[in-house]
Structures are given as C-alpha cells and as structure tokens.
C-alpha cells in the first residue's frame, strides 16, 4: 500500500479537482434544480461510509475471534472514517432537505436510523478513548452491531414510508439520465479512493502507536 500511496494520492487529487466540472456538466433535475447537485457528494459519502463500516465490522469480528492486533487497528480506522463520512452525509442531507423539503430535519425512518448509526460510531470512538483496559473488545462488539445496521438503513426507504428518495432512484439513473449517472460514478470513484487513502493513513498511525508502545515496554524491561 505504501508504494501505491503516492500515485493514488495524485489520481484522487486530480479527480477531486475535476469533480466540480463533472458536476457542473451534469444536467439539472427538473423539480429540484440546482440543489440536486448536492447529490454528487451526498451519495458517494454514504457509499464511502458503506466501505468503511464494512472494514470496521469485518475487522472487529476478526479481532474478537482471533485476537489479531492488526485487525483491531483496521477496525478503529474504519470506525473513525465511518463517523467522518457519516457527518458528510448527514450535513449535506440536511442542507439538501432545507431547500428541497423546506425543513432541516424529519424524524422519518431513514434519517433517524442514519443519525443513530452516526451516534453508535461516535460511541465506539468514545469507548476506545475512555473505557480503559478491555475497550478493544467492547468497541469490537459495537463495531459488529453498528455494521449490522447498515443494510437496514439502506433498505429503510423501500420498507417504510419516508420522504427520502428511494433506492430505485440511483439504480434507474443509468437509464433515466446517463449524464447524471456518469457524474455520480465519477464522484463515487473519487470518494472510494479517498477512503482508501484515509484508511491507509489512519492504519499507519495505529501501527506507529503500537510500535511506540513496544518501545516503552522494551525500555521498562
């Protein structure tokens, strides 16, 4: 990953520099007009969150069953990125809602569950920071249960009556508007590469912390 880091960083920076052009070139949506352009960073934020929550959930499970320290480092990195991308999704969604629905927030199934997910992972990080010895196992359990909620949140707009757009909006976009769909795919690719870079940097920090702990232990001996 270290060899790939710099080329990936350059490509990601280039993609984010071009993203405003791709978004500006995409056509307007007929009812929401300009505000719908938030979509091109809002949806990729949630897709990047899906990637980070998967990393956190899988790594937490591996840590709980095998005790692998490396898995624990990936789990904490994934949890931190989940809160970051969750904050992106929630804030951009609120700004979109204010204009499109006339309200900042609606306590419907999708929005409430997304907020709860964010709070679970804020809780994960707080457990990690303040719970002391044994926090790794406690937070791993939180990571698994937090990750388990993700499919329910995704399908919530189809199962319950909400004001949020349904999942079919994105699925059918390739047919209804290929230009919008290609801009969305471009931004999603940029966000997934950003996720990979941030995960790599965050895991490196955890490796360094572990190395520092080993140095302290060696000095004490």
């Amino acid at each position: 990953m270290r060899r790939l880091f710099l080329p990936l960083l350059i490509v990601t920076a280039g993609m984010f520099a071009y993203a405003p052009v791709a978004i500006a070139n995409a056509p307007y949506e007929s009812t929401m007009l300009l505000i719908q352009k938030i979509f091109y960073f809002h949806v990729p934020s949630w897709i990047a969150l899906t990637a980070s929550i998967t990393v956190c959930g899988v790594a937490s499970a591996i840590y709980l069953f095998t005790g692998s320290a490396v898995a624990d480092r990936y789990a904490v990195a994934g949890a931190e990125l989940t809160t970051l991308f969750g904050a992106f999704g929630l804030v951009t969604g609120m700004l979109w809602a204010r204009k499109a629905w006339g309200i900042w927030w609606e306590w419907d199934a999708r929005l409430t569950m997304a907020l709860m997910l964010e709070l679970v992972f804020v809780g994960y990080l707080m457990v990690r920071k303040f719970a002391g010895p044994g926090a790794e196992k406690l937070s791993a359990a939180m990571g698994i249960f937090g990750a388990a909620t993700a499919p329910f949140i995704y399908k919530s707009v189809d199962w319950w009556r909400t004001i949020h757009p349904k999942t079919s909006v994105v699925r059918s976009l390739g047919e209804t508007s290929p230009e919008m769909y290609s801009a969305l795919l471009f931004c999603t690719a940029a966000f997934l590469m950003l996720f990979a870079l941030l995960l790599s940097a965050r895991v490196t920090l955890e490796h360094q912390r572990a190395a520092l702990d080993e140095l302290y232990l060696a000095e004490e001996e």
Partner: protein
Amino acid sequence: MIRRRLGAALASIVWLGVSALAQTPPPGQAPPGQEGFVPITQLPPAQQLPAAPYLIAAYAFIWVALLAYLFSIWRRLGRVEQEMRSLEQRSRKGGAR
C-alpha cells in the same frame, strides 16, 4: 368667516373621500387575502429560497471537514513519531552509559 371655514372643511372631506375611492380597488378586485386564501402548490421563483448558498455550504463543509481530519491525522502521526525519536535517543544514551 365661519361659512368659509365650513366650506373648506366640506371641500376637504369631499376631496379625501374621492381620493380614498380612487385608491379602493374596483368591485371586481378585492385586496389580497380579503375574500379568502387561494392555495397554490409552487411558490413563484422570486419567493423561493435560493439554492446556491445551501449547495456551496454543503461542498464547503466537506472540504473543511476533510482538511481538518487530514490535519488531525498529520498532527497525531507527528506526535507519535516525535515521541518515538525521543525514546530512542533516551535508550541510546542509557546504553552508552
């Protein structure tokens, strides 16, 4: 004298009445909302919330939060590496003695 004053007062009342009548809309055009509220589904464009500030705020939030997060990782990494360097120096000095 009194007649003149009464005449002026009468004339001004008539003038005020005429001007008030001139400002009153004709019987077919009642003032807005007087006869009842008429619902519409869409606001006229001039009355709608402008979208650009929300769009700019959304993208600006992502950029600012991302830069803040990158800065926090860089600072935490720097702190750990500095601590490692000082620990290595300390252990080297201890070994030399």
